[in-house]
């Protein structure tokens, strides 16, 4: 298989996934059309999978919304369960009776992150998109725009800034001490850590997967003793490593779902805190 397909799909001995030891280099994107020169290098395999994830999200929810009936079919039941999960445990808990306006975004956000994280475990992609930090920053920026936009829309710019930078009951003498901290915390540190949390979990998880899978494969492929260890021992270690890699994959499935959930919960909480009546 050559051409475009080999740049989209990681294959053994091709691309960046074959390097040992795995490192930050393993996360480099491959441009889809290297012949076009560096100005088109943004058109790479990871962008493609993010776009595919977005298409899956849109297609899934359009499909779920089609031909709805009062007595749900099996398909509709699945969609409603999913919808209820986000609505009941995230949106309504955090946002109270205001939740309906933000629900579509939260559902899209959760589905999008989850599908991108699942890409880390599934063939064809084998790469969680959000282990590239730029994508995580992008989502955090959307969250930032959402909670600030919602706050400004509700309170007006002045009142909103006052609410976000000045907790109640702080004596005037300490204002100069506190205001920069509140500002930094609410507008920079919190969205930043939101992105970092998602990125670091996916990055570390993918690195561990690579260590287990690639390392075990190399051990299994050994044909002569290395470092004084006999071949049989190396192959046994490789076999055990492969078996354990499935446990790591299972863990990553869990981590991917949890991180998608946490990101959505925190987005809802940020919005809730910016439109809350008082702190």
């Amino acid at each position, binding site marked *: 298989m050559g051409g475009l397909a080999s740049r989209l799909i990681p294959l053994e001995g091709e691309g960046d996934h074959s390097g040992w030891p795995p490192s930050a280099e393993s996360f480099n994107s491959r441009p889809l059309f290297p012949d076009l020169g560096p100005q088109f290098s943004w058109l790479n395999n990871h962008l493609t999978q993010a776009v595919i994830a977005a298409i899956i999200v849109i297609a899934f929810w359009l499909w779920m919304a089609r031909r709805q009936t009062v007595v749900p079919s099996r398909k509709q039941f699945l969609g409603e369960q999913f919808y209820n999960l986000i609505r009941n445990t995230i949106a309504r*808990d955090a946002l109270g009776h205001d939740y309906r306006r933000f629900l579509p975004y939260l559902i899209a956000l959760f589905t999008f992150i989850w599908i991108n994280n699942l890409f880390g475990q599934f063939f064809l992609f084998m790469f969680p998109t959000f282990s590239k930090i730029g994508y995580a920053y992008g989502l955090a920026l959307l969250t930032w725009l959402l909670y600030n936009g919602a706050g400004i829309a509700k309170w007006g710019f002045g009142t909103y800034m006052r609410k976000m930078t000045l907790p109640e009951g702080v004596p005037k003498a300490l204002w100069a001490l506190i205001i920069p901290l509140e500002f930094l915390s609410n507008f920079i540190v919190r969205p930043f850590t939101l992105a970092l949390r998602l990125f670091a979990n996916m990055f570390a998880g993918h690195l561990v997967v690579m260590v287990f899978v690639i390392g075990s494969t190399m051990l299994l492929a050994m044909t002569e003793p290395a470092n004084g260890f006999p071949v049989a021992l190396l192959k046994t270690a490789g076999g055990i490593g492969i078996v354990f890699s499935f446990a790591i994959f299972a863990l990553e499935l869990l981590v991917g779902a949890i991180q998608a959930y946490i990101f959505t919960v925190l987005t809802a909480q940020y919005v809730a805190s910016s439109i809350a009546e008082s702190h």
Partner: protein
Amino acid sequence: MDEQGGVDQGLRIISYLISGLLFYGGLGWLADRALNTTFWLPVGLILGTVAGIYIVIKRYGRA
């Protein structure tokens, strides 16, 4: 306070402590660079931590 609010609150408290260290530590570092001294950075870090803890107590101490 439900469970998710608890998660948010915990992360927010960390965020305040980080902000304190960043802001006042950063000011101290700048002062050190500008004045060719070495003591403003630790002073800033400590002041920042104190300010961060103060905000946390002010915001969440009553509950």
